[in-house]
């Protein structure tokens, strides 16, 4: 950290190598495409570089970076929605709002289930999606998610619960390709 603050770009590169993959993965799933995720990963690390002296060590560096990343992603999504006048195609509680995967008589295929899960995640409302990605995909604890998203721990739990319920409804519309079947 001291080397980064001294302007040592190679020290910052080490930090990038440690954290870039998980932040990129998070950004891909929050934004729904890799091209935007690449642009935003640049923004995230540039912002991290600028704000390094604001990092007080009250959370882990990974949590701090997740928070920066999530703020950048959510800002981007909101400005994109505002620009496009976008009507968010989110999953309702019963799974409406996204076309369920086409049914198939063939045995469940892991790749298809993965693709369907990616589609289901992409259609979750932002708050649910963020909490679900951090908890079930990235494996963070609720207290860490609360810090990252600036919400209460209980809210994190309820957002993950909602996300799972929505995904379950989505998958149950196509019994032959449920996550359970994988």
């Amino acid at each position, binding site marked *: 950290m001291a080397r980064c*603050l*001294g*302007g*040592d*770009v*190679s*020290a*910052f*590169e080490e930090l*990038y*190598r440690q954290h*870039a*993959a*998980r932040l*990129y*993965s998070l950004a*891909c799933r929050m934004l729904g495409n*890799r091209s935007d995720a*690449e642009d935003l*990963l*640049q923004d995230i*690390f*540039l912002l991290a*570089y*600028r704000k390094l002296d604001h990092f007080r060590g009250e959370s882990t560096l990974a949590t701090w970076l997740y928070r920066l990343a999530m703020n950048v992603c959510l800002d981007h999504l909101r400005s994109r929605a505002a620009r496009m006048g976008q009507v968010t195609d989110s999953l309702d509680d019963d799974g409406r709002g996204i076309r369920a995967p086409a049914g198939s008589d063939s045995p469940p295929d892991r790749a298809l*289930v*993965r693709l369907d*899960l*990616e589609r289901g*995640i992409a259609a979750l409302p932002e708050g649910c999606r963020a909490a*679900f990605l951090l908890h*079930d*995909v990235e*494996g963070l604890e*609720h207290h860490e998610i609360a810090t990252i998203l600036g919400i209460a721990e209980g809210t994190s*739990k309820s957002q*993950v*619960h909602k996300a*799972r319920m929505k*995904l*379950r409804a989505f*998958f*149950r519309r196509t019994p032959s390709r*449920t*996550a*359970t*079947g*994988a």
Partner: protein
Amino acid sequence: MTCAECRELVGELIDGTLAPDRRADVQAHVGVCAACRSLEEDFAAIRRAAAGLERPAPPDGLWMQIAGRIKSDPAFKGRTAARPPSWTMGARWLAAAATLVVVVVALAWMVFRGQGPGGGQEQPGRQAPPATRQSDVASGGDAQLVESVESELRLAEGHYEKAIAGLEKIAKANERTLDPQVAATLQKNLTVIDQAIAESRAALGSQPESRPAQESLFEALRRKVSLLQDTIVLMNEMRKGDQAGAARIVEGLNKS
């Protein structure tokens, strides 16, 4: 326990975060209620599938673009105000590391020649490095040391070449963003550096242990990395339409 209560807690059951008494209650209910058991199984399956999702890797050249943006950022300039402007810290560290390796190679080479068959004796009043002063160091071990250091040198050179290849790819993909005159200046600078690299390699071909030739090669490789990084920063500035930023970089390129 009711189904409504169970539905609220079943997520925590599969996460393993329920207190023991609540866990027992939920498990007991799930044991007798097919609907809640189905919910538990589905939640568990979703969680497993989510945890098994692939983590896409960022593209290889992305760090170079970030480094380029950092180099042109006021925060970087503020942090490096006291440093010589033509050296990035990354390049500086690499060059220092390369120089260090060169010194080690030279030392190892001298030790090998001094301790090996037919080698010279230690001069009175001068101490050899402790690790090699012991008379029981076998010449085979020295040869291994030389070989190991030479392989590290090759590795360092490989890192430079990989970085250069990545940068060249990015620069090539964006070459249309450059003014032809600026592109010509860059090409001219690159040609000079490539010439220096070729000459250093030729010198190393005839004298593999030559420290000046090794230093010259790494210095030329470092200059090429730096020039390509500047080129990519310039391309970014041009694309953003930042004429002032682009002009500053072009001025630097003309001086290099």
